[in-house]
């Protein structure tokens, strides 16, 4: 089975190399076949009944070490080339700390790779959702105005990213984790920079230095773990830190997760990533990158004590509420989706912070189904941009007239993020129960509960408020009424199909009627909309107080972001500082 695992790690880089060489036609076939194989591997690994652990040979460790140095060196070079002080300084700090830490690693060795249940779920979404996005990108990238060589490079980078992600979710050594963490930072930097205009470079730099902070936090965690617990392996660290009072390594790891998840003070890097082609946003938001954060918290929450777990949950739920509120003031479609991702990541982190098997399961549900739904939504956002030339919500107006099926798909994706019986709903449902449970032993959890309840209601408000624009009438038209290209349509539709099928997974937690009833209702609604033909019934106009001219409809508008952003950032930072301080003293 270790062979299969190694294949899932090393096949993507091989595919990436192939992408660079092959001519476009063969490239596409190879990519689709590669995605198919990877997904197959992921499914096979998912049904594996036992845990797999193994260590890499010593030579490979040397290679990792060299790669680490190379990546940090590249960051320093990027800092110099783009004249970015924070990037350069952070790279130097990382280099110094890394050399110090790597030199003092203990001789004791355990498995580098551990395949557990969490990793299995992650494989599914990384390869399945990530694969769908790559297939979508094959066609999408052809419409970018760059050389063919760079288009191939783009696809290759996506494959490489998937490979890195596959490995990071199975990594047990913090050192290896650090290398892969830095590699994801590198991938996202290169992807965001892809269009190479001033804005892209600017945002890529910001993404770089913020994520370097995360890398630094991991190094700090490693150093702290070495001094107190003499290990650089997650499992040993957790077993030794269990019940111990000094939790600084875990606090630092949590900090790294917050940065990766772009939680509020760090939100600008993820929102800045929108300048890149849409598949980049899709892959960053759904299958890769930000999902490292809740995954990392899930991995380490076993070692949290009550205070640490409460503080992490508080940060998560606070961000869930504020990010959802800020999304209300946005007009750029991808930005709205971006904020809602940040919010939901907050909720996932809050759930993952509770060391309880049910919370673990709920967090996994959220991670998986959020990945599918968000992936689908971003692919749809890409269709809006490429096919209809629409970027802003206010331009979407009247799309329902032109392509009702497409609008129904978007509505379904929104529904999947809020309504029963879909996975994200299930996550929220379990979250409320879990927080209520936690409250009984730890009354402060009531604040976490309040934040999550408000956040989830605001998200509902956000999604369905957005929908109104598809129906609103406006004078300007948004592109022609032709059918969407199949090569765009299928990946997006495929993800939606997975969502529907995924409702079945909730059988374990919900009763049969509880799952079937909403499905039946939604199905009836869909069938009736398609089939119901009102024969011999008059059609009338809508009511406009007897006026002939139709009024133009506008949407409600809130501006929370400019008013409360500063305060939210400060508050979140204070909470995060409290986590580190708590790790030190408690």
């Amino acid at each position, binding site marked *: 089975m270790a062979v299969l695992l190694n294949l899932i790690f090393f096949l993507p880089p091989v595919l990436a190399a192939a992408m660079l060489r092959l001519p476009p036609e063969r490239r596409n076939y190879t990519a689709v076949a590669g995605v198919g194989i990877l997904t197959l591997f992921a499914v096979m690994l998912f049904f594996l009944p036992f845990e797999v652990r193994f260590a890499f040979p010593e030579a490979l460790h040397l290679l990792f070490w060299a790669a680490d140095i190379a990546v940090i060196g590249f960051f320093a070079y990027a800092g110099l080339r783009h004249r970015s002080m924070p990037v350069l300084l952070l790279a130097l700090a990382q280099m110094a700390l890394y050399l110090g830490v790597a030199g003092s690693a203990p001789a004791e060795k355990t498995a580098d790779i551990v395949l557990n249940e969490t990793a299995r779920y992650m494989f599914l979404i990384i390869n399945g959702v990530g694969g769908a996005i790559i297939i979508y990108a094959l066609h999408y990238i052809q419409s970018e105005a760059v050389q063919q060589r760079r288009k191939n490079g783009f696809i290759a980078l996506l494959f490489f990213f998937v490979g890195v992600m596959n490995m990071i979710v199975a990594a047990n050594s913090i050192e290896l984790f650090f290398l892969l963490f830095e590699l994801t930072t590198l991938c996202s930097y290169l992807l965001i920079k892809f269009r190479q205009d001033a804005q892209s470079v600017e945002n890529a730099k910001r993404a770089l230095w913020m994520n370097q902070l995360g890398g630094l936090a991991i190094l700090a965690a490693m150093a702290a773990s070495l001094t107190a617990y003499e290990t650089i392996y997650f499992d040993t660290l957790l077993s030794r830190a269990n019940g111990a009072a000094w939790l600084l390594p875990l606090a630092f790891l949590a900090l790294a997760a917050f940065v990766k998840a772009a939680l509020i003070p760090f939100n600008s890097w993820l929102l800045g990533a929108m300048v890149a082609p849409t598949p980049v946003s899709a892959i960053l938001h759904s299958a890769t990158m930000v999902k490292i954060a809740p995954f990392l918290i899930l991995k380490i929450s076993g070692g949290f004590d009550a205070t640490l777990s409460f503080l992490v949950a508080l940060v998560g739920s606070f961000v869930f509420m504020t990010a959802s509120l800020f999304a209300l003031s946005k007009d750029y479609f991808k930005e709205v989706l971006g904020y809602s991702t940040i919010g939901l990541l907050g909720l996932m982190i809050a759930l993952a912070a509770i060391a309880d098997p049910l919370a673990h399961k709920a967090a996994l549900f959220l991670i998986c189904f959020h990945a599918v739904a968000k992936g689908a939504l971003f692919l749809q956002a890409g269709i809006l941009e490429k096919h209809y030339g629409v970027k802003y919500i206010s331009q979407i107006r009247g799309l329902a007239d032109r392509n009702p099926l497409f609008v129904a798909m978007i509505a379904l994706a929104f529904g999947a993020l809020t*309504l029963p019986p879909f996975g994200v709903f299930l996550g929220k449902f379990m979250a409320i129960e879990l927080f209520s449970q936690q*409250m009984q032993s730890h009354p402060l959890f*009531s604040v976490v509960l309040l934040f999550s309840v408000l956040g989830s209601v605001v998200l509902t408000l956000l999604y369905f*408020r957005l929908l109104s624009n598809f129906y609103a009438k406006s004078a300007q038209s948004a592109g022609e009424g032709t059918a969407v290209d199949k090569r765009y349509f299928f990946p997006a539709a495929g993800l939606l199909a997975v969502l529907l099928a995924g409702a079945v997974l909730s059988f374990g937690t919900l009763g049969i009627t509880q799952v079937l009833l909403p499905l039946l209702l939604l199905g009836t609604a869909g069938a009736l909309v398609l089939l*119901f033909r*009102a024969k011999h019934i008059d059609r009338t106009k809508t009511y406009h107080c007897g006026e002939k001219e139709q009024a133009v409809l506008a949407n409600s508008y809130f501006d929370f972001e400019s008013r409360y952003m500063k305060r939210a950032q400060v508050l979140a930072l204070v909470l995060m500082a409290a986590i580190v301080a708590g790790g030190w003293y408690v």
Partner: protein
Amino acid sequence: MFEIIFVLSAPLLGGMLQGIERQLRARMQNRMGPPLLQPFYDMFKLIEKRPMIVDEAHTVFAIMHFLTLWAVVAMLVLGDNLLYVIFLHLLATIFLVIAGYSVKSVYSHLGANRELWVLAVYEPVLILFAVAFYLLEGSFSLQSIYSGQAHLFALLPLFAAMVLVALIKLGKSPFDAAHAHQEIIGGVEIEYGGVFYEFLYMAKWVEYIFIYTLFWLFAGSNLLLGIVLLAGVFVLLNLIDNATARIKISDLLKVGLIWGVGLAFINIVGLLYV
């Protein structure tokens, strides 16, 4: 058996309730008021009118709103999971919102927008309501709430918050901005006529049953208290409706978030410490 009959006749009972309510309100204003069965007379008349629609999808969503609400009441009365019932109720509301958005009508959109805004007020209260019962009973199971003891006195602030929710959901002043008749002509229901309006009209009846059943939960298995409580709430809601004027939607949001969610949250925290 009793529950099943109750669920099947929920729209009828709701209609009766509305008939009684119209009488009660008339008596409070010192007038005669319509006959008790007036809601059903309205219903038969609506069925008999020449039907007209704006478009098909719009009509379908109203029907789905009604059916979903009915399913919600079934799940609530037959003793499912309280939290789940509240989320299913959200689905019903979303159908209504989509119905409002699916036609190009200013008032319909305004109504749907407002429907969403008030959702932001009452949905947290409803969820906290469920959480309060979780804290008292140890689970969200409605069966155990129905057979458990009365929690009214432990949940008085929450009760006040629920009165606020009931005023919003049943469209009673001062919190009826979501379907204000003189202001936005009923909001979402504006574009429906004849037999198709009938579904929204009946949905309102089912909503009555839903809200009053939620109040019934406060009394647990205490039948007498339950009856007194429902009668009291019924009179109270209509008294407030008659005695106050509508407040603006923005004020509704403020009052609802501060008092509704605030009271419910204080109650929950209180339960943890007492």
